[in-house]
């Protein structure tokens, strides 16, 4: 069964999608090295895009393939529309774009699948809530039924993948809350500046407190959120904020854990999300500095996932 990872933060611009793509590619590339040493099969990663901005979908599939997926309704909003509104018999599994990445590692394609999103997701999610509340459903009932549906659908998919990573939109939505409840671990990318830490505090105090409430039979998240410091700069201001965060965690005052790995702000990271047409590979896409931190993060994540079991 796949390990489920949600990448979320109420604040935008903290590197959620970059974390999703880089982590998915690192887990997939690492497994190619591992498979070549041990002869075991390569791990596969499924990225589930819950964000109507569809940035992760675009970064993985590219314009042409994403256009095809959207036109064919092979998106999360397509699934919700067809299954819940049109009452069609359709499974999430059948809508996944397998082997979507064109990035290779030592000549082997990264084993990454995608459940894409489209800009229509926001409209579909809102329309769904309106339609169901008009039909007499309470918000709690909608959340409960949607959780049940998506957890069953993800369960059916997860036997084909080793990791499922949810790219959650900024803010908070029904789908984000469901992903946070489903996930074995929630990664919260956080820039160590005042506004981002304010957002982190809001996330911990409002969202997490609400999720911990299991009224209505919904499960609480399986572990406390794990903070990942992103866009780290070697400045006194960032040093102070990171030290403060780590001190709070060490004193047991924070309702979260924090990865030792920090992702620095370096040139080349934003560009790495642009697709190029000529033979992209993992080592060329992520520079040596970022690769070092991504491999560290993948190892830390494995340990954190083991601790959840």
């Amino acid at each position, binding site marked *: 069964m796949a390990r489920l990872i949600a990448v979320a933060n109420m604040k935008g611009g903290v590197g959620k999608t970059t974390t999703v793509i880089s982590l998915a590619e690192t887990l997939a590339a690492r497994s190619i090295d591992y498979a070549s040493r041990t002869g075991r099969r390569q791990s596969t990663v499924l990225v589930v895009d819950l964000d109507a901005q569809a940035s992760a979908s675009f970064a993985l599939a590219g314009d042409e393939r994403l256009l095809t997926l959207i036109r064919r309704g092979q998106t999360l909003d397509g699934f919700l529309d067809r299954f819940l509104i049109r009452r069609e018999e359709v499974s999430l599994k059948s809508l996944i774009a397998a082997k979507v990445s064109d990035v290779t590692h030592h*000549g082997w394609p990264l084993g990454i699948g995608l459940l894409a999103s489209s800009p229509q997701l926001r409209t579909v999610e809102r329309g769904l809530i309106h339609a169901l509340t008009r039909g007499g459903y309470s918000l709690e009932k909608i959340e409960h039924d949607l959780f049940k549906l998506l957890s069953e659908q993800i369960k059916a998919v997860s036997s084909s993948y080793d990791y499922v990573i949810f790219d959650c939109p900024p803010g908070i939505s029904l789908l984000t809350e469901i992903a946070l409840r489903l996930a074995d671990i929630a990664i919260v990318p956080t820039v160590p500046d005042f506004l981002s830490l304010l957002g982190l505090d809001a996330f911990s105090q409002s969202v997490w407190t609400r999720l911990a409430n299991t009224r209505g039979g919904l499960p609480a998240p399986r572990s406390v959120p794990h903070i990942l410091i992103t866009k780290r700069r070697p400045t006194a201001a960032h040093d102070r904020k990171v030290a403060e965060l780590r001190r709070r965690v060490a004193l047991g005052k924070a309702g979260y854990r924090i990865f030792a790995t920090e992702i620095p702000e370096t040139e080349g990271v934003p560009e790495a999300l642009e697709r190029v047409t000529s033979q992209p590979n993992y080592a060329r896409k992520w520079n040596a500095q970022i690769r070092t931190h991504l491999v560290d993060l993948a190892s830390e994540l494995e340990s954190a996932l083991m601790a959840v079991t």
Partner: protein
Amino acid sequence: MTLALDAYDILRRIGSNPELFAGLRGAVAEVAEALVKKELTSGSLDIESFRALVGALGEENVALILQALAPGDVLALARTIDPHHGKPRSKDLAWAERHLMDLALGRAEPAAADGARRPRPKARLSRSKQPPTRKRASPFGTGAMGAKSDD
């Protein structure tokens, strides 16, 4: 006292005491990769020095750095190490990466100057036959962002 750093000694000592430089792990990786890339793209390597370099740095490290080289640099290195082999001119990047590691590990030998079939100079490729250039996607006017389901 010294006027010039013994840089090799410093690098060796950094490598022997990584815990003292824990905050610089990423930067050290970047510098290490940059140094090896510089040597690989210097144009000064031949088969013997290339094999010695791979022997010194380790097969996996060099294989990864070859992956990180720009495609043109990989092809140029293959032409430098195996100047009489016609294949690197074909711009087959995956082949060039594999061939370089085969040469490094003694699984292949460079083509002999007299025995090798020198490729005939190719006529300029027509536009449709030219290999794809490195082209970045534009964020403006993408089809996907304005698309809707056909249903």
